[in-house]
């Protein structure tokens, strides 16, 4: 309608003095069907000068109004797929219908290729670096930023056509995996001749033609045969004397690449996390192959505060990591990654513990001073072949830990020294391969591993004299323990998708054999008899078939998992003449359903059965002295748990009003065949035993969260609350007790951007914990914290922040308060690629932190000595 008016206006404005001509009619095809979208143009006669035009409507009608002083005009009708009709008419209003003849003439095809400093060959684009780099550019990342189609985010991530690259190769080799930023920011662009973008890059070549990839990879071609570069960061401060150093040189050649990194600090930064890689493959290994070492024995430790490590970690860490990649014949690649870590940590503080029993309350005060030494070596050798016919990746890895811990503990005027030697060695091999079986692509996974953990704990003076030494005090006790494990896990899987359905079956066999030997020696030479030693042989095998099926239709999404597992356990301690054999078949269906009621409302629910079996540290027949006041034997059958789970959730999101709300409820009912019995001794020592008695545990947390964004105020407000209820039974000093724990948490946050250069964030957090033993309610513990951060960006390259935090804990005796404040100032000299940073942490020198932990039968109040006020100055440069 409005267009009609506008065209009309246009005609009027162009030819104000002239009389109006109106031509209208209908346009049809040869069969008389109305033609929509045909253009009807009035031209000056014999030319292509347009006087007026209209597009036919859905009934094929058109109506052109115009003014012209010419006597004759041309009218032209065009429609895609029809022959163009041109007629000469008199300049007078009239009705004119057109019947168009179809036309098989095709449009002239064109295909324009733009861009020239860039060459394209197949799926590879080549950028000549010299054409793009500017004088102020230093690293290859700077030059990349200028190449059309490539974008480098502030965190170093490289995007091609708006999406992240999937591989970053240097001379075709992938040394760094996902950590390519290290090379990207430090490799000078003058060392690089060409950047290649490999479009649609499928990193696993055998999948290349089968599994479509729309991601690109980047390949850096070097000018020279070898390039040496790197980055350094040096920081120093007080008090005491602090350092923070990071030096990372690297070498790239066509066939060999290396990167070395040395990092050391005593400023509370736990750089150990840097050598941890958490890819999906590694997670799977951890879950299924019990790769995490078990800490059987320990010295008495302080529970660490729940706020950032930089406030409390007293460390002295050295981390050296080396990565080397070499190309071999026949397209094999060999990669060696090694890291060595040495850390010396100190902990100081004291704990005050109250044990509640149905008959009594036992109080215990312990002053602790601990020295923890960690020595870790990890090395892996990876051989990979990645061609169109084969994908094979084999990793052989060794992990070694030589940790020692010394604890001196003062309780009731007596000094207890504890000395722990904790070693762990593990050698394992993982093979992953993808191959064809007929037309179906199969994935084969194989894990073979062996580990040994010798551990020893010495305590002076000897505890548990009633149990261990007929009530006679004695000088020393030594607990020795060795666990040896052999583990295999092999599986084969594939995925088949039909319309709306998908099935992913997996078949596998997992087998584990463990040997536990322990003994307790008193006063250097007196080895205790059988009941205080273990010689346990543990074998478990699982044969599993898992089918996961998914179904999706309209607003529904349904997923059903139904793994069938056959479990076989053979557990035997020949010396103690104890044994157990279990053969069991489990079916563990799990159904989850999602329903999208509207764009705003969404409902999800799930229900399932699950079986869990105990591990070797949950059953052994002889006593093990785990720490100076905990001696345990679990002379009971294998723990078997049957869980019934249910969950339900509702969420509401209204993006137009900027409101989000959700609530999630979970319910788990577990049936356990064992009940644990804790014997409390008068000196505060505990003894844990398990007896066979069916019992259950109910766990039902509920969470809700509400948030609203106020656009006018640039403010976001979030409120959240959770409530958790746990109910279970425990035997405490020969009585069966029902324990009920309740936890409340209320949490809120307000963020406001006042201006471009100033923003704030405020958080408040409160938790309330209480428990009930045999209907007797114990006092509630309240912990609250408030933090306020102010961030300023006064000028380009400058950053200043003030961070404050207030913590208050209501303990059972009194309240405690802590107030922390830190300031950070950073100056970025972009042209020189230098960062200067000044940090002043814990300005008010808040040193003592007190916290409480509540567990099923005790309150533990921990006093932890924090790091003092410290100032640190850092400089970051390129090598």
């Amino acid at each position: 309608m409005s267009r009609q008016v506008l065209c009309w206006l246009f005609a009027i404005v162009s030819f104000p003095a002239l009389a109006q001509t109106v031509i209208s009619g209908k346009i049809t095809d040869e069969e008389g069907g109305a033609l929509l979208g045909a253009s009807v143009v009035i031209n000056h006669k014999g030319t292509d000068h347009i006087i007026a035009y209209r597009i036919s409507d859905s009934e094929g009608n058109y109506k052109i109004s115009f003014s012209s002083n010419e006597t004759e005009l041309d009218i032209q009708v065009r429609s895609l797929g029809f022959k163009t009709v041109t007629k000469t008419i008199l300049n007078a209003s009239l009705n004119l219908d057109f019947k168009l003849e179809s036309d098989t003439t095709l449009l002239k095809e064109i295909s324009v290729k733009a861009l020239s400093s860039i060459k394209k060959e197949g799926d590879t684009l080549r950028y000549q670096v010299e054409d793009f780099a500017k004088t102020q550019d230093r690293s290859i990342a700077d030059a990349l930023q200028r190449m059309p189609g490539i974008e480098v985010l502030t965190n170093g991530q490289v995007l091609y056509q708006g999406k992240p690259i999937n591989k970053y190769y240097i001379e075709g080799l992938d040394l760094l995996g996902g950590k390519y930023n290290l090379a990207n920011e430090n490799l000078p662009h003058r060392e690089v001749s060409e950047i290649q973008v490999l479009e649609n890059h499928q990193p696993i070549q055998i999948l290349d033609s089968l599994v479509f990839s729309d991601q690109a990879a980047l390949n850096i071609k070097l000018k020279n045969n070898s390039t040496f570069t790197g980055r350094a960061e040096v920081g120093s401060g007080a008090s005491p004397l602090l350092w923070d150093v990071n030096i990372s040189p690297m070498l790239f050649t066509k066939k060999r690449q290396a990167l070395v990194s040395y990092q050391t600090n005593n400023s509370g930064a736990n750089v150990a996390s840097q050598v941890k890689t958490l890819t999906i493959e590694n997670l799977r290994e951890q879950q299924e192959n019990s790769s995490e070492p078990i800490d059987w024995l320990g010295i008495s430790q302080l529970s660490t505060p729940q706020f950032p490590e930089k406030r409390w970690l007293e460390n002295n860490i050295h981390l050296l990591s080396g990565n080397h990649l070499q190309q071999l014949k026949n397209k094999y690649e060999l990669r060696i990654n090694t890291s060595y870590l040495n850390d010396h940590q100190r902990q100081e503080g004291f704990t005050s513990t109250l044990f509640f029993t149905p008959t009594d309350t036992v109080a215990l005060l312990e002053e602790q001073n601990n020295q923890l030494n960690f020595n870790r070596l990890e090395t892996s050798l990876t051989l990979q072949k990645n061609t169109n016919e084969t994908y094979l990746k084999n990793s052989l890895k060794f992990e070694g830990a030589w940790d020692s811990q010394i604890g001196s503990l003062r309780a009731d005027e007596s000094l207890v020294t504890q000395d722990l030697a904790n070693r762990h060695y593990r050698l394992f091999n993982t093979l992953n391969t993808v191959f064809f079986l007929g037309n179906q692509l199969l994935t084969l996974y194989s894990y073979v591993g062996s580990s040994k953990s010798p551990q020893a704990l010495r305590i002076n003076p000897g505890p548990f004299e009633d149990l261990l030494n007929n009530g006679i005090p004695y000088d020393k006790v030594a607990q020795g323990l060795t666990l040896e494990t052999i583990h295999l896990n092999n599986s084969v899987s594939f995925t088949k998708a039909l319309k709306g359905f998908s099935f992913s079956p997996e078949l596998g066999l997992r087998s584990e054999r463990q040997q536990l030997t322990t003994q307790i020696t008193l006063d250097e030479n007196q080895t205790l008899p059988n009941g205080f030693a273990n010689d346990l042989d543990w074998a478990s095998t699982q044969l599993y078939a898992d089918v996961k099926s998914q179904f999706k239709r309209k607003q529904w999404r349904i997923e059903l998992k139904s793994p069938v597992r056959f479990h076989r356990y053979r557990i035997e301690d020949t010396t103690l003449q104890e044994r157990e054999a279990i053969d069991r078949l489990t079916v563990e269906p799990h159904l989850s359903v999602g329903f999208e009621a509207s764009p705003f409302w969404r409902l999800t629910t799930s229900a399932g059965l699950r079986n869990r079996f105990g591990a070797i540290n949950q059953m052994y027949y002889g006593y093990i002295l785990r720490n100076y006041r905990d001696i345990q034997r679990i002379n009971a059958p294998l723990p078997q748990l049957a869980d019934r789970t249910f969950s339900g959730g509702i969420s509401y999101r209204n993006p137009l009003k900027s409101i989000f709300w959700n609530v999630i409820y979970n319910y788990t009912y577990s049936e356990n065949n064992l009940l644990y019995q804790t014997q409390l001794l008068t000196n505060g020592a505990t003894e844990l035993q398990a007896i066979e008695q069916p019992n259950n545990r109910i766990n039902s947390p509920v969470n809700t969260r509400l948030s609203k964004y106020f656009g006018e105020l640039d403010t976001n407000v979030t409120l959240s609350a959770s409530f958790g209820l746990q109910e279970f039974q425990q035997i405490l000093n020969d009585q069966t007790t029902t324990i009920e724990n309740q936890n409340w948490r209320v949490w809120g946050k307000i963020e406001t951007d006042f201006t471009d250069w100033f923003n704030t964030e405020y958080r408040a957090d409160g938790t309330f914990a209480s428990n009930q033993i045999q209907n007797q309610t114990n006092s509630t513990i309240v912990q609250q914290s408030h933090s306020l951060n102010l961030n300023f960006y006064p000028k380009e390259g400058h950053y200043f922040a003030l961070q404050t935090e207030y913590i208050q804990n209501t303990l059972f005796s009194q309240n405690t308060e802590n107030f922390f404040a830190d300031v950070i100032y950073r100056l970025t000299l972009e042209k020189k690629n230098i960062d200067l940073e000044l940090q002043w942490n814990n300005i008010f020198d808040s040193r003592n932190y007190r916290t409480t932990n509540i567990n099923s039968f005790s309150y533990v109040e921990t006093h932890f000595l924090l790091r003092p006020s410290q100032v640190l100055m850092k400089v970051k440069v390129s090598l």
Partner: protein
Amino acid sequence: MVKNYFQVIISVVFSFTTFNSFGQNNEAIGQARYHFKYLLNYQPDSTDINSVTSEEFMLQSSTHISKFQSINGYKRDSILTKISFPDPQRMGSLPKSRFREVILKDYKNGKITYRERILSDHFEYEEPLGVFNWAIGQEKQTINGYPCQKATTTYAGRTYEAWFTQEIPNTDGPYKFNGLPGLIVKIYDTKKHYVYELTEVKQIPPTDITKEKEPHITTGKKEFYKVKNEFYDNPIAKIEQMGGSITFDDPNQIKMMQDKLKKRNNPIELVIE
């Protein structure tokens, strides 16, 4: 350690999109016999001429309906339609585009339907087809092999010069532009912040033009741009709103991310009416 915040966001957003973007339900709304490909050169930061970048778009056109979408968006949709249950890890490898919008022009009912996803929410608003007041000029030139004629219009705060060809008698064009007696071969605003150019005309076997069946949040144009601007002003707040959470080791990273988004200060529609 520098956290890869962009990935954090992507994963957070992803966790919300999983539910409704797998196995997209599409319905055919027409059939295209030609693919028209456009290259857009645009300047996302109006203050920085070096920020010019480009993106390819596709116009699928039938007589009564047409669909305009970025090539990456089109590929993403075609993949999602084919795979009912993609591996979540592989979702990250699907094509992404800065231009998430899908513009449907319905010639039968005379309306433009604009659809865009912000985080996990699918929005749509409608606008009449005839919002363009074209003034046809006499200038002519041949662009990419097609003889073209000049026309001018103003829209949403910019003045545009368009070059259309009567050799392709299709009243369509890139973005929302339409209503000329021939296909638009090239169109740009007078500041040349947005330059669309036809780079490919290709005959194809009849291919369905599809439309997502997913329920969309229907809203007014003004309200839509309010939501969109709020996202650009404060993406973290908006993501947390959606129930995601992002933690930063360093608040400076938030600033860097906001600065990055602020460099996208030059939308094609400057004035929303």
